[in-house]
C-alpha cells in the first residue's frame, strides 16, 4: 500500500556535498526560493526535514488517539459529528505529511516502522490523557492553537512540499481551534460543574502545551541550522511567548484562570510565565508520560491487526495485474 517508486538512482551523487553546490543551495534559500524534491540538497538538510516532517506526521496519527477517545461519548450529535470530522482531518494531515516526507526519499512504511519501534518521536502532548469532555475543548483551543503558532511560519518553509502541506493543514487547524474554543465557551457558560470541568482541563493542559514548543532556546539542538535553512523562522521561546500572549486574553474572556499565579505582564505587554518544569518534559520524551505506553500499544495493535488486510489487498492487486496481463496477451 505504501509508495515504493522513489528516485534513488542518484543517491550517491546526492551524498556528495561539494562546496559549490552547497553555496548555490544556500543562495537559493537566502533568496527565498523553494527547494523541490528533485533539486540538489545537502544530506543534512534532507535528514533534518525527513525527521521533522515524519515526526509531524506521526504526531497527527498518534494525536488521533486522545481525541478519538471521546468520539463514542461525545455529548451531542453535533459534537460527535464535528469531533469525528476533526479526527479524520488529522488523519488526512498525517497522509499529506507522509507524502511530503516521501518526496525526500524515505517511504511511509519505513517511517511508520520507526515510529512503531519507538525510534521516532511524536509530539509529547499526545502522551497526556483525555479524562473529560472538556479535554476535547482544551485540546482544540490550546493544543491546536499552539500547533498553529508553530505551523504558520512553516507555510514559508524552504522545502516546497512541506510548505504547501502546511498551508492546507493550517487552514483546517484554525477551524479546529475555533471549534475547541467554542466547546470551552459553552462549558464556561454552563453549570458550575461544567465550568469546573473546563478549569480542570486548563489546569492539566496548560504546562504540557507550553512544553510543545520544545526546549528553551539555550538548550535546543536543532535551532541554528534549521534557521539558516529557513526551515524554522522563529525560536522555540519566541513562539512560546507569542502563544502565551495570544492565549491569556482568551482565558480571561472565558473566565478561566491560567494555573500560573505568579504570571505578570511586562511593560511591553508580554505575559511573563513562571519557569517550566523541563524534568517533566524530559520524562515524557523518555517514554515516561502518562500515556506513552498506551499510545504506542494502540498504534502497534492497529498495525498488527491490520496486517492481514494489507496483505489481502496486495495479494488481490497482484492477482488482478497478472489477470490483466494474461488477458492482454490473449
Amino acid at each position: 500500500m505504501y509508495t515504493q517508486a522513489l528516485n534513488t538512482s542518484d543517491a550517491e551523487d546526492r551524498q556528495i556535498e561539494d562546496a559549490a553546490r552547497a553555496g548555490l543551495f544556500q543562495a537559493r534559500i537566502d533568496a527565498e526560493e523553494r527547494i523541490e524534491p528533485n533539486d540538489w540538497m545537502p544530506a543534512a538538510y534532507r535528514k533534518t526535514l525527513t525527521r521533522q516532517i515524519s515526526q509531524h506526521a506521526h504526531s497527527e496519527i498518534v494525536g488521533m488517539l486522545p481525541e478519538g477517545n471521546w468520539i463514542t461519548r461525545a455529548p451531542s450529535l453535533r459534537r460527535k459529528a464535528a469531533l469525528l470530522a476533526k479526527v479524520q482531518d488529522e488523519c488526512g494531515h498525517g497522509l499529506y505529511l507522509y507524502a511530503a516526507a516521501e518526496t525526500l526519499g524515505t517511504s511511509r512504511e519505513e517511517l511508520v516502522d520507526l515510529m512503531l519501534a519507538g525510534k521516532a518521536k511524536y509530539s509529547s502532548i499526545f502522551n497526556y490523557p483525555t479524562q473529560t469532555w472538556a479535554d476535547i475543548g482544551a485540546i482544540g483551543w490550546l493544543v491546536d492553537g499552539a500547533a498553529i503558532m508553530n505551523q504558520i511560519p512553516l507555510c514559508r518553509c524552504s522545502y516546497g512540499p512541506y510548505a504547501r502541506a502546511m498551508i492546507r493543514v493550517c487552514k483546517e487547524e484554525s477551524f479546529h481551534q475555533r471549534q475547541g474554543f467554542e466547546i470551552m465557551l459553552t462549558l464556561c457558560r454552563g453549570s458550575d460543574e461544567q465550568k469546573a470541568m473546563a478549569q480542570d482541563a486548563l489546569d492539566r493542559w496548560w504546562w504540557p502545551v507550553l512544553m510543545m514548543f520544545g526546549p528553551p532556546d539555550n538548550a535546543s539542538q536543532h535551532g541554528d541550522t534549521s534557521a539558516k535553512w529557513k526551515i524554522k523562522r522563529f525560536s522555540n521561546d519566541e513562539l512560546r511567548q507569542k502563544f502565551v500572549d495570544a492565549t491569556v486574553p482568551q482565558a480571561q474572556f472565558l473566565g478561566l484562570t491560567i494555573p500560573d499565579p505568579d504570571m505578570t505582564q511586562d511593560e511591553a505587554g508580554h505575559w511573563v510565565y513562571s519557569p517550566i518544569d523541563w524534568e517533566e518534559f524530559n520524562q515524557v520524551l523518555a517514554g515516561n508520560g502518562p500515556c506513552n505506553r498506551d499510545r504506542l500499544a494502540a498504534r502497534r495493535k492497529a498495525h498488527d491487526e491490520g496486517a492481514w488486510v494489507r496483505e489481502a489487498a496486495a495479494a488481490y492487486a497482484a492477482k488482478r495485474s497478472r489477470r490483466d496481463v494474461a488477458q492482454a496477451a490473449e
Partner: protein
Amino acid sequence: MTVANIQISETPLVLYLLRRADDALILGHRLSEWCGHAPMLEEDMALANMGLDLLGQARELYSYAAKIEANGNDEDKFAYLREVGQYRNLLLVEQPNGDFARTMVRQFFYAAFADLYWRAMMRSRDASLAAIAAKSEKESAYHLRHSSEWIVRLGDGTAESHARAQGAIDDLWAFTGEMFWLDDRERALVDAGIAIDAASLRAPWLKTITNVVSEATLTLPTNNWMQQGGRSGQHSEHLGHLLSELQSMQRTFPGATW
C-alpha cells in the same frame, strides 16, 4: 436527579423515521469506533467518511421526526434519552465491529440495501423524505462501492482474508432478512405513497450481493433462517453496551447543554 427516558408519540410516520434514523446512528457509531485503529490510514479516512454520512442522515431523520411528532423532542433527545427497548434499528447494524472483514460485510449488506432503498425513496410523496433520500442515495452508492471492493479484495485476496470474509458472511447472514420486513403501520405508509415497500427490494438486493460475493469467490449461506426484532425494540445484548457509552454524558449530567 434521575434522567427519565423520553416518551414518544409513535405515529406511523414518526416510528418509520425513527427506525431509519436509528439504523443510521447505530451503524455510524459503530464505524466511528474504528477511528484511529483502522488497518491503514486510507481506511481510517474512509470509515470515518461513511460514519459521518450516516450520522448526518440520522440527524436529518431525527430532526424531521421531531418536527412531525411536535412533542418537544429533538435529535439529541431521540439519541441520548431512549433506552434499548425504545430503539428501533435493525439487528444487523448493532452487531459489533469484530475484525475488518466483519465490519465490511456488515457495511456491504446494509449499503446494498440502503442504496436501493434511498433511490426508491426519492419518489416518496413526502417531500422532506424525498429530499433526505436524494442526499442519502449518493452517500449509500459510495458506501456500496467501497464495501463491495473490499469484499472482492478480501474474498479473492489471501487464504486468511477469504476465511475471515466467509466467516463474517456466514455469521451476519441471519440479520439481513429484517431489512425487507414491514408491519401494518409501514404498510399504511406504503399505500399512501410515503414509504416504499422494502420487500420489493429483496430480489435486486440479492442480485447485487450474489454478484459481488461470487466475484469475491465467496458463497452465501444456504441456511435462510432470519432473526428479527430490532424494529420492535427486541435487541441483541450488544445494543445496551453501545448505548451506555453513547449516552454516558447525557445520563451523567442531566439537562446540561454541550
